[in-house]
């Protein structure tokens, strides 16, 4: 075996050991590296109780209510909405300004504590963006096509 073959074998062996070590570390940390918990995980009790954690999911369309208390002073400041992963949902209460990209039907990540009433008390709300980029006309077209498709399906299912 030539010296450089030896060094090459040594290097490959080193990288294999390193990769396996990294794999084990990542596997061990797996749950802890998640940035947020889904509503299902919260309901299953996987989120830490009495502790600050993040909750992420879609904002249920029509669930956003501002100023639940009806007080003139807290208007547009106190927001409640429901976050879902299409399986389970958690109600969120948030006092503060919502980010620009916050929209119903879109992803959101909130940080706070789960209250005793099962409502998540958020002190931070971040809008999560998805990987789609398109001009507004295309988005409008897709929306129309989707509505049309839904209408056709609804019409087709009728006897």
């Amino acid at each position, binding site marked *: 075996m030539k010296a450089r073959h030896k060094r090459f074998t040594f290097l490959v062996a080193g990288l294999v050991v390193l990769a396996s070590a990294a794999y084990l570390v990542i596997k061990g940390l797996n749950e802890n590296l998640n940035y947020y918990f889904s509503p299902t995980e919260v309901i299953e009790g996987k989120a830490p109780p009495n502790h600050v954690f993040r909750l992420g999911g879609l904002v249920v369309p029509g669930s956003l209510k501002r100023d639940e208390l009806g007080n003139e002073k807290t208007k547009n400041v106190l927001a409640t909405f429901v976050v879902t992963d299409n399986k389970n949902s958690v109600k969120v209460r948030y006092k503060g300004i919502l980010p*620009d990209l916050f929209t119903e039907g879109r992803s959101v990540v909130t940080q706070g504590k789960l209250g005793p009433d099962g409502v998540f008390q958020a002190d931070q709300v971040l809008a999560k963006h998805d990987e789609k*980029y398109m001009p*507004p006309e295309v988005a409008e077209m897709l929306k129309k096509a989707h509505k049309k498709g839904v209408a056709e399906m609804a019409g087709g299912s009728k006897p």
Partner: protein
Amino acid sequence: MSSRILNWFKFSSPATFYPLAGKIQKVATVTAVVLLLIGLYMSFFVAPTDYKQGEGYRIIFIHVPAAWMSMFIYMVMAFWAAMGLVFRTRLSFMMARALAPTGALMTFIALWTGAFWGKPMWGAWWVWDARLTSELILFFLYIGYIALQGAIPDVRRGDRAGAILALVGVVNIPIIYFSVKWWNTLHQGASVSVTKGSSMSAIMLEAMLIMTFAFWAYSIAVAMARVRLVILERERDTRWVSELPEVRG
């Protein structure tokens, strides 16, 4: 077959690579300038606004190419580090050394533009999610490589120590790339992927790809310019360097 191998090894000598690097540098510089002009024009004037993010999305024309290059340059650097360790070729280490600052710059641009985008879109400059954190670690790896390599006075030992650090850091690259898949992150998933194609409109994608090639050409040009300087510095006592017109004059 043997002649091909010989040809390859011919350029592993700094003396023969030096003029070649100069030629590559010239071609890459011209390519980079042309592509940057086309790419920036398309990014700002041709590509339409985004349906959701408005004009702010245009940061991706810088952000995504920089982030890709930050990972790609690291892989190339690690490759040269491995070549240097196995074959003990001086030029391989010089290539790794020449690539590191450009890689660090790309990582910094990716982090910086990402923060500028994150504030209006997410509502936060910075979050400690898996994607952002692993990219920050990549930045520290570049800085650490440059520092370690430069801190050891003996060039050969410094090169080898740096190369080992660079190789250990390779595990971070798949972590960055797949972080958005493996874990819940605030950072969105990949818009462009080899397996799934793209979820961007065609014109936006074209602008972004042209910008990527521009960054690519820029990186090659700068790396070649830097490797020439490293060669001159390290081979300054050799005869061929003292006979170069730019050194004599």
